[in-house]
């Protein structure tokens, strides 16, 4: 009898360790291209890393343009890709507020207020995220759809390109999953 109980406990322990979402980890989809949501995603990501969580950010659709490096130019794009290139924000500093953008006035104002109140800028937060080991995965299909190339993306230490399975595998073992 006693042996059976011990076996049972071992089996339950093994199951607990393997259960989905057991890892202290945050997986987040950054879908939106808005400045405000990028700020939120970076605050949550750096905060989570500070709390000792492993962090993976999956940039997809409108979110990917924030990873463009304005200093990098790549050739070999067709007409539609070039048009997308012009119309999408050239990097995180060109993203706009989702509300009260007011032809640029609102966005400029919020940036000025953030500076005045000593809130870290998006650029600074990317640097902190890199220091804390926050991983970035760029959605391959989004880049392809919008004609963005890997070579025009920012230099970031822990960045790779992946698809939906990459995100789902990360998300399945994460205790926190978010979509922004």
């Amino acid at each position, binding site marked *: 009898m006693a042996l059976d109980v011990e076996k049972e406990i071992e089996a339950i322990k093994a199951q607990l360790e393997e259960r989905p979402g057991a890892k202290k980890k945050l997986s987040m989809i950054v879908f939106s291209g808005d400045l405000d949501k990028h700020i939120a995603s970076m605050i949550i990501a750096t*905060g989570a890393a*500070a*709390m*000792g969580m492993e962090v993976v950010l999956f940039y997809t659709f409108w979110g990917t343009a924030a990873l463009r490096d304005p200093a990098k130019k790549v050739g070999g794009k067709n007409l539609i890709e070039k048009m997308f290139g012009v119309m999408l924000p050239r990097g995180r500093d060109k993203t706009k507020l989702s509300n009260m953008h007011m032809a640029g006035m609102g966005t400029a104002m919020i940036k000025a207020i953030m500076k005045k*109140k*000593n*809130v*870290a800028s998006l650029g600074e937060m990317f640097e902190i995220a890199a*220091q*804390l080991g926050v991983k970035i995965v760029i959605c391959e299909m989004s880049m392809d759809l919008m004609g963005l190339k890997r070579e025009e993306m920012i230099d970031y230490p822990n960045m790779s390109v992946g698809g939906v399975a990459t995100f789902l595998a990360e998300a399945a073992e994460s205790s926190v999953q978010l979509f922004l």
Partner: protein
Amino acid sequence: MSDYSVSKTLDYKGLKCPMPIVKISQEMPKLKVGDVVEVLTTDPGSLSDFPAWAKSSGNEVLETKQETGLIRIFVRRKK
């Protein structure tokens, strides 16, 4: 009364969310287990953020003192 001695005071005055917990998390590996640091902050969010951070990262907030325009938080490295 407090039965610990502070090994270091960290000035995080003026820093906004999430910087106080980012900074303290980067400071922890520099401390010895058992060391206590005093954090000076002006961010009211730190009052709830430090205990939450400590719980998640396995450290300990020993004491929180609120003065006018300044918050002192005493943190012990536990592991």
